[in-house]
């Protein structure tokens, strides 16, 4: 079979173009736009978008201080965010509008084990912090079609509260803790669903439930106070319902497994009649 000259020439150009891409590619797959080279590696990640818009030029010291502000402990899961995920400051990435987090983009980020993307921007005298909870946006919003919980949430803070520096925006931030706990809870739930080994599955169900319980523990601190700061009321209610439903669902999964019930110190019959599935 003979190939026409024009097709051959365009084909050569295509091959050359592919070569350009391959030669310009870094050693590691640059999966997350605007993030450092190690962002494409394995493991869960929390991506912190550029804060240059609110803090000016971000030097090494500020970026380290920002990352340090992401230290938080999850009591029920007996873990820390740093143990669970790599915190990445991505100077070349800004948290974008909700429309940018399409099903395709979120699918890529979920495959790359991104748990949460956080970013801040100024809005008059306030600062708006955006939280994109990737597993919720991927599984709950796009796959399950639950429109009340988009996995893209914004919380408003007064700039005056950030007295000691921008890192105070994230240090001890209840909303951040709630979002991180929910992201981890759903991530562990999905891993548990896919796990074929029964023993490992039980451990994963336990961890997922524990993170839902940590999220429930953060709810009160994030409750909107009607001063237009913090989360929007309908969003907070949707997140609250999601956390409670998750904890209950995982509790049901756990108690459906006779081998797992014996590891719970308190089972359903011993609970005091409250709705919490987190007593254990």
């Amino acid at each position: 079979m003979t190939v026409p000259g024009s097709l051959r020439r365009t084909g050569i150009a295509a091959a050359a173009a592919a070569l350009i891409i391959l030669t310009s590619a870094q050693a590691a797959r640059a999966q997350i736009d605007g993030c450092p080279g190690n962002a494409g590696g394995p493991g869960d990640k929390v991506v912190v978008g550029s804060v240059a818009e609110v803090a000016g030029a971000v030097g090494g010291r500020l970026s380290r201080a920002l990352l340090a502000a992401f230290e938080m402990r999850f009591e029920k899961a007996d873990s820390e965010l740093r143990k669970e995920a790599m915190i990445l400051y991505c100077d070349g990435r800004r948290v974008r509008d909700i429309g940018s987090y399409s099903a395709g983009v979120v699918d890529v980020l979920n495959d790359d084990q991104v748990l949460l993307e956080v970013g801040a921007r100024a809005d008059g005298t306030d600062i708006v912090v955006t939280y994109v909870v990737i597993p919720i946006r991927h599984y709950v919003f796009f796959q399950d079609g639950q429109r009340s919980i988009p996995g893209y949430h914004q919380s408003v803070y007064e700039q005056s509260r950030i007295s000691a520096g921008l890192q105070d925006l994230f240090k001890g931030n209840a909303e951040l803790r709630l979002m991180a706990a929910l992201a981890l809870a759903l991530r562990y739930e999905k891993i548990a669903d896919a796990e074929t080994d029964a023993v490992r599955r039980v451990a994963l169900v336990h961890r997922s439930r524990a993170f839902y319980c940590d999220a429930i523990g953060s709810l009160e601190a994030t409750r909107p106070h009607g001063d237009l700061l913090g989360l929007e009321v309908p969003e907070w209610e949707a997140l609250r319902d999601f956390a409670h439903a998750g904890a209950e669902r995982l509790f049901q999964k756990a108690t459906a497994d006779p081998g797992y019930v014996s590891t719970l110190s308190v089972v359903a019959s011993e609970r005091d009649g409250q709705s919490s599935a987190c007593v254990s």
Partner: protein
Amino acid sequence: MASDDKASAPAAPPPNLAEALVALAKVIGPEREAPSGSGLVKMLKGLAEALLPSIVMFVLGFIFIQGVELDLKREEFTASAADKLRSYVNDLVASKAETPEEEEELRATALALGGFGGVAAIPLVSIIEHGGDQRITAAKSGLIQAGRVAPDLTCSVIASVVDDPTGAYEWQTRKAVSEVAGLVGCAGAEAPLRDLRPRIAAIDGLTAEQRANFEHTVDEALKRIEAAARRKQGWFS
């Protein structure tokens, strides 16, 4: 008496115009044919014989020149298309897609690249392999476009990526391309997808969640390809 006979006989009908013209033609005919052997005809005939080779050469030359010009134009078009293809690829690789406008531009460039059909398939797969959440999403749109423009060539590239006999591609690339195979309805990718499905569990470095999502994508792609094949059969049956 005789005059009475004449008078009593019916009068002959007057000759009509057609008969009159025929009679006239018969009369002048020999005079019209006379010049056939004249010097004028001989001269014209000789002239035509002398010019015939030149006329034939002129026509053949004209056809040849037109053909060469067409080839040159085609080459110019191909060179311009190749330049465009390269610039689209550069734009896709270099784009940061930080703003919604840049995201739209990225997607438009990928769709324009996909418009080249099969020749764009390999660069688009390479862009998916290169990575970047916005870039991958745009390149997938471009690959779907290429699949619509030139299904055979594009599906052949898609099938080779799904098959990946040399292990050249990341699992994310194969997952993305598997999804495109379903959306385009690549019948040629069905066998590689069926072959890949049980082997996903053996791919190194995947979490249980990633494995399950990859398997789900392949299952969905197979469903779409089967549905497309059924519809095709339906049209022809």
